[in-house]
């Protein structure tokens, strides 16, 4: 059976590194020791640099140490949490990592709502085969929460986290969970977006999760949408009019363009790109945009059937967001009362 250390040496080199921008002499440093299993909290001031024994022996359930810097400011008190450390006989360790198909590495990993992701987790320090080990040494909690965006995709628009699922991990090692698709609630994948949050907790008393071992998040963005405008419900023209393409929620790492090819719609056809109509999004969150092309009539000059397609390239491949098929008839003559097609 593992035994808890009776006490530990704590060392700190806090200033000026942690408070480099301020006058170090203004700050006092407070060390707190809290027993993790429903017991006392100790505190005392310590030097800016040095080491000391823990205030009290470390109980079997472990202790959490917090190092705070405090100083008086006009109107009150300012405090900063400098560091935390958990010590105990039965405190497992763990890691979490989210992997998506998007290689983005400048912040929280991200994916699209239909694509899903992997969560790689690892746990060490559990004693599953020790009959004398307390419950705390036999399991850790994997807590899965979801927060959804209420309007817009900036952090300020993110709602509170709601519990999605909890599970117990009862063996050491590395494993993975695969989520396809993502778990953001809702019924409209063109607007549903949010953040999925995974946290691994030790359970010092076997029941209450109060010691976080690891955290991983993934941003989940909605499907992109495209629609053609400017055709006024018609599909036959003597000259192709100005056309607009309304684009919604373009993936933050995407290139979107319009291509055309002669003939009816056929998915997978490589057509001719309208070179002045592409949009590159390199951003943190999805973006809307509008493409206008008013000289398509100069590009498509021959009579015939043509298909226009909106394509987007993302880390998930090239996809057709929308298409429309039009007929160009250079010799189009419309007689009678159809006002919109009276060219001769």
């Amino acid at each position, binding site marked *: 059976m593992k035994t808890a250390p009776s006490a530990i040496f704590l060392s700190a080199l806090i200033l000026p590194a942690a408070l480099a921008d301020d006058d170090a002499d203004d700050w006092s440093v407070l060390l*707190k020791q*809290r*027993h993790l299993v*429903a*017991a*006392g*909290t*100790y*505190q005392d001031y310590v030097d800016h640099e040095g080491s000391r024994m823990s*205030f*009290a*022996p470390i*109980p079997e359930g472990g202790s959490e140490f917090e190092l705070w810097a*405090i*100083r*008086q400011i006009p109107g*009150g*008190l300012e405090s900063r*949490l400098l560091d935390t450390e958990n010590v105990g006989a039965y405190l497992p360790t763990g890691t979490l990592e989210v992997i998506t198909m998007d290689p983005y590495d400048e912040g929280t990993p991200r994916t699209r709502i*239909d694509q899903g992701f992997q969560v790689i987790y690892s746990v060490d320090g559990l004693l599953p085969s020790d009959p004398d080990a307390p419950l705390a040494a036999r399991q850790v*909690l994997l*807590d899965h929460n979801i927060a959804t965006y209420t309007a817009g995709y900036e952090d300020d628009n993110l709602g509170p986290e709601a*519990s*999605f699922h*909890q*599970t*117990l*991990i009862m063996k050491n090692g590395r*494993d993975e*969970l*695969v989520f*396809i*698709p993502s*778990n953001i609630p809702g019924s409209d994948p063109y607007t549903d977006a949010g953040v999925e949050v995974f946290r691994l*907790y030790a359970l010092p008393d076997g*029941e*209450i*999760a*109060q010691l976080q071992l690891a955290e991983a998040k993934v941003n989940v963005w909605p*499907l992109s949408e495209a629609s053609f405008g400017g055709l006024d419900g018609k599909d036959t023209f003597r000259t192709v009019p100005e056309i607009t393409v309304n684009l919604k929620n373009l993936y933050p790492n995407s*290139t979107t363009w319009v*291509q055309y090819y002669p003939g009816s719609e056929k998915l997978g056809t490589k057509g001719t*790109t309208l*070179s*002045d109509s*592409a*949009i*590159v*999004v*390199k*951003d*943190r969150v999805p*973006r809307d945009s509008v493409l206008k092309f008013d000289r398509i009539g100069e590009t498509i000059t021959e009579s015939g059937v043509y298909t226009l397609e909106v*394509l987007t*390239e993302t880390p998930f*491949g*090239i*996809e*057709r*967001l929308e298409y429309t098929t039009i007929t160009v008839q250079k010799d189009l003559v419309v007689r009678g009362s159809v006002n919109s097609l009276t060219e001769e």
Partner: protein
Amino acid sequence: MKSSALIPLAVLGLVPTVAAEIKAAPSAEEVNARRQTGTTAYHRAGLKVPAKKVEVRLQSADLMDTTRILVGPNGYTLVPADSVVATGRLLTLAKEAPASGKLMRWEEFIRVHRAGLRMITVSDEALAGGEVTKGLKNAVSAAERSGLTAITVYNNNPVSVPKLISSSKS
């Protein structure tokens, strides 16, 4: 973090070339049909669901979540929340630092406010979560009657003893 960037390709002199297969974008119906199976990943991995929902207490980055301010006529000091077991006439307990007054270290605070304080020494056992003894309960009752502010201490430093607080409330 990059800011918004919608860049017309023509500006960059780039024209997309379609090398990969063009697929149909998924429809809402297709995505929604697959969204019904959210927790199957856990079942597939053979992970156990707790018998009842586990309570999660997140660590706070706010010192005042676990700390209180003990305010006297000559200044104030920080003590662990629940370490003050009785409030007397001379000293008050607050959740926020007063706008004026001097922040004092504990040693200095007790030196200048000794007349209004009673310190109750607690044992290792009580601090490790053991049952609160009758002697400790009596000491708290006596402090409450005395009109002094009573605070539990260990090695002369303020400490909180959650079981003492819960037993006094019951």
